[in-house]
């Protein structure tokens, strides 16, 4: 076929937001997302259990060092912002960071031009939303525990009663902003890779490779932001003046 490539690109339909789905009793499951999540989970569990089995108090190996850097960073952040009321937020923030980090990295693994073999699970809204739901439940239950039921609901009237609707919306919107931020970044990253794959093969490797390198940084930053916001939301939930 002769001619410039523009018409060819225009005629291609990108699989944006399309998943390999299965319906079970009326419920729809994105099988590729579940498959990628399973791979990410297995990787994280393998990395964790491997370190736990050989954790040494002496000179740590590279893998243990990675875990210790994450654990130490989260612990310090939590100690600075929350102090003695840390509770379950430390393991939650650590697991969120590592899991999102690994899940985001799946995107850069070469797995086909249209990235269908191993898509990043965080590029599916279901995954960030599930994690954000866990975060919401954890910090809301912590707020109930530290402030009591009346104290929890009283904070929606602070600093004035007429701010009640804004406070409620602000509280309800937290898990959605948390999940949409991660989803948007990873989804757009995947979209960029799909767009770059439309270039001729002899040139597409360069921008695709560069973009995947850039996407690695995005993946780390997004994992960090998700984990950090979890700590901040938890801090706001348990602090005396927090909202």
């Amino acid at each position, binding site marked *: 076929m002769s001619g410039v490539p523009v018409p060819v690109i225009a005629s291609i339909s*990108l699989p944006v*937001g399309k998943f390999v789905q299965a319906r079970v009793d009326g419920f729809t499951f994105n099988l590729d997302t579940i498959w990628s999540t399973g791979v990410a989970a297995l990787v994280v*569990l393998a990395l964790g259990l491997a370190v736990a089995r050989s954790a*040494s*108090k002496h000179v740590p190996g590279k893998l243990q060092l990675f*875990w*210790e850097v994450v*654990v130490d960073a989260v612990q310090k952040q939590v100690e600075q912002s929350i102090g003695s009321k840390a509770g379950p937020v430390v393991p939650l923030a*650590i697991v969120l960071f590592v899991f999102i980090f690994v899940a985001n990295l799946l995107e850069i693994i070469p797995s086909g031009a249209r990235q269908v073999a191993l898509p990043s699970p965080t590029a599916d809204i279901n995954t960030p939303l599930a994690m954000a739901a866990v975060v919401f439940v954890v910090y809301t239950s912590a707020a109930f525990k530290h402030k009591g039921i009346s104290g929890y609901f009283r904070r929606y009237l602070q600093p004035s009663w007429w701010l009640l609707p804004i406070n409620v919306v602000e509280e309800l919107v937290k898990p959605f902003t948390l999940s949409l931020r991660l989803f948007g970044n990873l989804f757009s990253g995947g979209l960029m890779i799909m767009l770059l794959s439309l270039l001729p093969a002899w040139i597409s490797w360069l921008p695709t490779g560069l973009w995947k390198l850039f996407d690695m940084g995005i993946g780390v930053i997004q994992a960090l932001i998700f984990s950090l916001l979890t700590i901040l939301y938890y801090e706001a939930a348990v602090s005396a003046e927090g909202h």
Partner: protein
Amino acid sequence: MLAVTDFLLPNATFFAELVAFLVVLGVLAKWVLPYISKAMAERQAEILQGIEAGDEGRRLLQEARAERERLLEEARAEGRLIVEQATKVAGQAKEEILANAREEAARLLARAESAIQRSTELANEEVRRNLVELVMAAAERVIGAELDAAHHRRLIEEAAAELESSAS
């Protein structure tokens, strides 16, 4: 052309993801993170122990240095005391020796003076005796006659005594 789907709406995958994440969270929180935290805490405790041991070592070193300085100062003070005592004893011995020497010298001088006195007296006696005999011999030669020896001896001795007293 981009296909527009309902990819912004969650479906039942949400529950599968929720379960998967909770499993990962549970396993890591129960069987991984405690071991890592434990290893970190033990290492930190060892480091703190090492720092404390270093502090203790430094403290002991400072104590040992202070003790050494104290002992040196004591030794210096004791040395000074010994030197002072030795100087004092030496002075006393010197004074004693000098006193003994002076005493001995005085004694020797007195003995020498006494000996000189005796020698002088003996010499005077000898001179006197010889003088009498010479006078008598001279008188005998002059007068040619033998005089009563005892009488003349007495006269001569009186004359000698007069001479002696006049001389002294």
